[in-house]
């Protein structure tokens, strides 16, 4: 199942959950109901939540992450959030841009690719 994106992940969750309650399905997946609700609304989960959801949906995480597609070099990064377990897509994209720009500007040394 190539080229699944985060929006599609949310729709797939809603479809598979069907008439079942969000609490029941969240417990089955092993995430909080609030997090599941956010992912259904196309918020970006952290990697642990993401892999649990992929497992429940029976899909390969690399289909969502686009492994094999050319992506910018990703630095080793540590991020501290306030409390959010899932991020709005616009925030996740802005954070990605900020991390990559900071890495390019301040941490890439001569001879290292960008």
């Amino acid at each position: 199942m190539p080229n699944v994106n985060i929006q599609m992940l949310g729709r797939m969750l809603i479809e598979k959950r069907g008439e079942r309650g969000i609490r029941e399905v969240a417990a089955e997946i092993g995430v909080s109901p609030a997090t599941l609700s956010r992912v259904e609304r196309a918020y970006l989960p952290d990697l642990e939540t993401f892999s649990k959801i992929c497992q429940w949906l029976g899909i390969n995480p690399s289909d969502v992450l686009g492994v094999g597609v050319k992506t910018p070099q990703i630095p080793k990064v540590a991020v501290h959030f306030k409390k959010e377990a899932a991020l709005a897509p616009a925030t996740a994209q802005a954070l990605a841009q900020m991390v990559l720009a900071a890495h390019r500007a301040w941490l890439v040394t001569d001879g290292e690719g960008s």
Partner: protein
Amino acid sequence: MARVPNVFNRGFKTSCENVARQQRRQLNLLPSDPLNPWTLAQHLGIAVHSVEDVPGLAPDCMQTLLRDDPDSWSAVTVSSGGRSVIILNSSHSRPRLASDLVHEIAHILLGHSPARVDVTEDGCLMLSMYDRNQEDEANWLAGCLLLPRDAVVFIRRRRLELTAAAQKYGTSMEMLNYRIRVTGVDYQFKKALSTFSAGN
């Protein structure tokens, strides 16, 4: 900060107080002196920036991170080749920035591994979170660095008014009250006072 962790490894809390003293000593400060997290970062060779400082970051990204959704993130540490850069969410208050900064420094001092990161096909940043134990450890060390036990004792001995004390140490009232509570300084003062009274 509000969550009090259940268990640390034996000796962890003492080692954090020692780290707070050691860092102050290296900065020629007394054990009870306020510690400016920006000075500490500089001393440790860690660059600290705000979102506005990031070269080439598109204005719409700044708008998202600082105005549309500022509460979803606090700080980001980007590490590569043994160097680290901390980017703070400059929409937050000064005490909160100090707390966020010292928390990130604590992760670095404790040698915690950076979280794994992936970028999705549509350009979103997807991260693994620090594990809960590492978050608890960083929170504890951050509290010790900002308000070590020596500082809490100093505040109580001098009977500093709490708002003035929070201002002096550059922390929030929440952090100050938390440190007063978890260091047990008030309890020990009361106990010492009752022992002294009973002896007279």
